[in-house]
């Protein structure tokens, strides 16, 4: 039962991730009074890329080809260990805790960066250097947020965090939770490359994440992009299910509840997508050096959560 639910969760993430991105793109175009592509456009793009031939830069090593597959499989591993459609651990749940999950995210990002450097393209190097600079500042914030949630729940297990927030109104409404959640939202924007950090539209080039995949083509590009969509979707799920709105996630292994929750969960994600679209359409892109102000504010919010905890002594 748990094993088949794990497979279900894996398929849920892998198959719906491109659709989510498609919905975000479509909504953006609608806000801009344009018709926009179909919400299934990302699937068409992936299919097209899978059929094309692969070109590899002459100077690149075999690692360049392996990297998309490795990072893709790391994201697949993450889908098995996070609370997405269930609030109880599935078969692979005990494999890693929250900090371990963060490390896997970090490992996938590092592999992508090494591969980008390996492509020997100037643009890829530019993107890598930018992504590493921003990542070096945003990763510690994630760690502080995890530590704060660990302090709240006395554990670093995402399932327990979900259960505590789902059952205790005091913790859900506490300032500690909301400061940490807001900081996580800001980091989520950085990690998923949304405005005001980065723009993926045709008019503006972010040259952070986009630059890193510059030299990929064919099947590898498709896998690389698909992995990116999954990362995006996973982070959105973690934000909604663990931090911002942990309600209705089924705590008992009941198939009917889980299937109903899958629909509710997707509605939550669409809600977050609408929020992203509002941000995308109302903010202009920061200049590169202003991103650090943004990250500094996120750090301050995460740290304020710790100070609130210190002030209250943990009695909320």
């Amino acid at each position, binding site marked *: 039962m748990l094993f088949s639910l794990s497979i279900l969760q894996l398929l849920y993430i892998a198959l719906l991730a491109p659709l989510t991105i498609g919905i975000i793109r479509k909504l953006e175009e609608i806000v801009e009074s344009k018709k926009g592509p179909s919400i299934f456009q990302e699937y068409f793009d992936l299919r097209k890329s899978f059929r094309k031939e692969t070109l590899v830069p002459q100077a690149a090593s075999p690692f360049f080809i392996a990297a998309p597959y490795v990072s893709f499989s790391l994201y697949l591993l993450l889908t098995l260990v996070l609370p997405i459609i269930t609030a109880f651990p599935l078969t692979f749940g005990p494999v890693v805790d929250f900090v371990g999950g963060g490390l896997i995210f970090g490992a996938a990002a590092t592999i992508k960066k090494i591969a980008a450097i390996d492509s020997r393209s100037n643009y890829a190097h530019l993107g890598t250097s930018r992504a590493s600079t921003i990542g070096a500042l945003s990763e510690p914030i994630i760690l502080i947020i995890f530590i704060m949630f660990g302090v709240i729940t006395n554990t670093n297990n995402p399932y327990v965090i979900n259960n505590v927030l789902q059952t205790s109104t005091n913790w859900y409404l506490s300032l500690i939770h909301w400061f940490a959640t807001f900081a996580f939202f800001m980091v989520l924007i950085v990690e998923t490359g949304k405005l005001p950090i980065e723009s993926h539209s045709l008019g503006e080039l972010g040259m952070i994440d986009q630059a890193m995949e510059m030299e990929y083509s064919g099947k590898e590009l498709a896998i690389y992009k698909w992995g990116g969509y999954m990362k995006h979707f996973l982070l959105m799920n973690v934000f909604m299910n663990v931090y911002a709105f942990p309600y209705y996630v089924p705590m008992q292994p009941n198939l009917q509840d889980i299937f109903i929750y899958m629909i509710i969960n997707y509605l939550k994600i669409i809600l977050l997508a609408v929020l992203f679209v509002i941000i995308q359409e109302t903010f202009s892109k920061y200049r590169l050096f202003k991103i650090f102000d943004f990250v500094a*504010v996120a750090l*301050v919010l995460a*740290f*304020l959560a710790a100070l609130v905890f210190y002030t209250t002594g943990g009695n909320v």
Partner: protein
Amino acid sequence: MNHLDNAFLLVGFLEIAMVIFMQWEVYITNIIKTFSISSYLIALLFLIVGFINKENYILILAALTALTRGLIIPFYLRRILRKDKWRARETSPLVGISSSILISLLITVMGYLLYSLTLSNYINSNLGPIPITLMMQGMFLIISRSSTFTQLIGYLVMENAMYMFGYIFPELPFIVEAGIVLDLLGVVMISGAIIRLREDVIKNGSEEYTELKG
């Protein structure tokens, strides 16, 4: 903690977050708006305290806060910025934006340290660090920015912190707290007049007139 302490904690930390937002923001109208919101929040806190403790003078203080620092002073400051309101901004901060945000965070930590080393022996409340922190953040806002408007706002943030101290020391006489309001109005009006005068004298300067140099 009782409900009032919780309300104080909520407002206090939102104030700290708002000062950090002011450190982040370069556009002066936005800083003034943020300050106005933060004053209304403090007024709301005092309103709640006054209603629960049934003390009339706290209600009067709440009304004074909302009226002077929520409404009149922000309105007056925005009137001084008479042309190109959306363009008025901090042009030459003395400390870089992101480093000033981080220093503001360190000040918060220092406020906690200071309180636990000194005042915590005399005051039986763990909420004391919040006003101390706010006051030091206000001071830092003054010294880290060169625009007079931001410096004035920093001064006003310090006064807000004084009001929040009033909750920690409940026996503070009314005349002291009400006196602060008059004090504030005087400072803001005089600074506004000086800014206007300088603006009239220096016709060509686009940015210089917003800076007061001793």
